[in-house]
């Protein structure tokens, strides 16, 4: 099943995908169907009782590591993010003025389903609720070599679109063989396969839970393959993962007077 979280009709709702539409799960409106265009898409994640842990991987595809002139890391290179940077499908991401290189990163996002501590690789899939698509934007102008990649590059408001769907793990037969692609203004700019991860999902779950407990709703963003390009204001960026869906996002500038372009 594909789950979404949306704003519509003055409230926030859980919905599922049904026959090319959104079907509301809210008790009072249960079963009502809405088109994809008449709702505001939120990150497809239920609220958590405490801050959501978001771990993101750097250089987790050998080709991307080469692209950035690094050799692949010997242990997962992970950084943590705050949930304040998350935004939904068809949202807007701010490009600061004067920036020269801001790029998307299409990533398989793993959503933890139950408390996970000292999990062995072979059992890792039992702890996963599902998968979604994340776009972990980076602004390379702000890179510094202190706890790199630093938060000013990676933890900005609006800069982590995620969605549209949380797809149940049971509906993703092999998460390690999914094609990823990104299109900017309709042009294919990035493609790869989750098969090419340096550290696969079970290895990541084993690694992280060897020293930290993960809770339901926590996220692992598993890194991005080769093919990242600068995205100027106005870019329509679509990150797609086979079987999970296409996450659309528009880059906007700082000017609050300027109308936000919506090409659809």
């Amino acid at each position, binding site marked *: 099943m594909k789950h979404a979280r949306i704003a519509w009709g003055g409230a926030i709702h859980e919905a599922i995908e049904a026959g090319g539409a959104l079907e509301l799960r809210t008790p009072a409106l249960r079963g009502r169907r809405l088109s994809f265009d008449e709702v505001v898409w939120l990150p497809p994640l239920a609220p958590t009782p405490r801050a959501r*842990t978001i771990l993101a991987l750097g250089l987790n595809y050998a080709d991307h590591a080469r692209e950035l002139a690094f050799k692949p890391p010997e242990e997962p290179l992970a950084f943590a993010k705050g949930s*304040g940077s998350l935004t939904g499908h068809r949202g807007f991401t701010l490009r600061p003025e004067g920036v020269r290189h801001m790029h998307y990163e299409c990533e398989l996002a793993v959503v933890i389903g139950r408390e996970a501590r000292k999990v062995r690789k072979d059992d890792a899939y039992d702890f996963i609720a599902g998968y979604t698509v994340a776009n972990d934007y980076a602004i390379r102008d702000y890179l510094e070599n202190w706890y790199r990649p630093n938060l000013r590059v990676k933890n900005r408001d609006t800069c982590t679109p995620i969605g549209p769907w949380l797809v149940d793990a049971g509906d993703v037969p092999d998460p390690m063989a999914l094609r990823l692609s990104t299109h900017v203004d309709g042009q294919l700019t990035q493609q790869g396969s989750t098969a090419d991860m340096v550290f696969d999902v079970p290895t990541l779950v084993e690694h992280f839970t060897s*020293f930290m407990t993960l809770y339901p709703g926590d996220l692992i963003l598993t890194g991005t393959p080769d093919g990242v390009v600068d995205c100027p204001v106005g870019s329509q960026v679509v990150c797609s993962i086979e079987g999970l869906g296409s996450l659309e996002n528009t880059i906007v500038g700082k000017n609050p007077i300027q109308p936000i372009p919506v090409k659809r």
Partner: protein
Amino acid sequence: MKAKLAWQPRGTVYGALLNLRREFEQWAPQMHEAPYKAPPSAPVLYVKTANTFAADGAAIPVPGPVRVGATLGLIAGAAGEPTHAVLLDDLCLPHESYFRPPIRYRNRDGFLVCAPQSTPLAQLTLQTLQIAVRINGALVQSVDLATLVRPALDLWAEVSAFMTLQPGDVLMLGSDCLPDGKPLLAAAGEHIELSAPGLAPLAHALVEEHA
């Protein structure tokens, strides 16, 4: 009578590295060398994930010596401005390199011990606040907020320029090294207390982590 629940972070907790002058100056000579190549121009930040949150009085399992990180956390109010402060022990495993993110060192279960209560900022004078650190009852460190590289509200402003601190988020001002430049270390079996005028104190123990 209603029992008062101990304070715990409701939002994301961020920490600032190298924000005490003594440690910054100690690092300064190597800041131009590889892999750093230049001193940090923006605040160097990290996240303490929710698995690290531990309550006053906890016994924290550690795999070896840990660095004690007595600090003050500023808490965001409804409008995203800092309204309260709380004492925290921001523990980490010692690490020589500040090049890569410190998840394995800083984000272990229980590595952020929280005082049971926060205090309105209006009741505190941050510029002169000193945090006393005791290990097994002996005073071993005094963290002096007058020596912050970025004073509390400057740090808050610089950070929230690119990431909004949401209601309940916490920004820790940084922890200090000892006068000789060494980190303050503690080990399993030891008992740590933090206190500062006007703030709820916190105490916790360290115990051996079982493999």
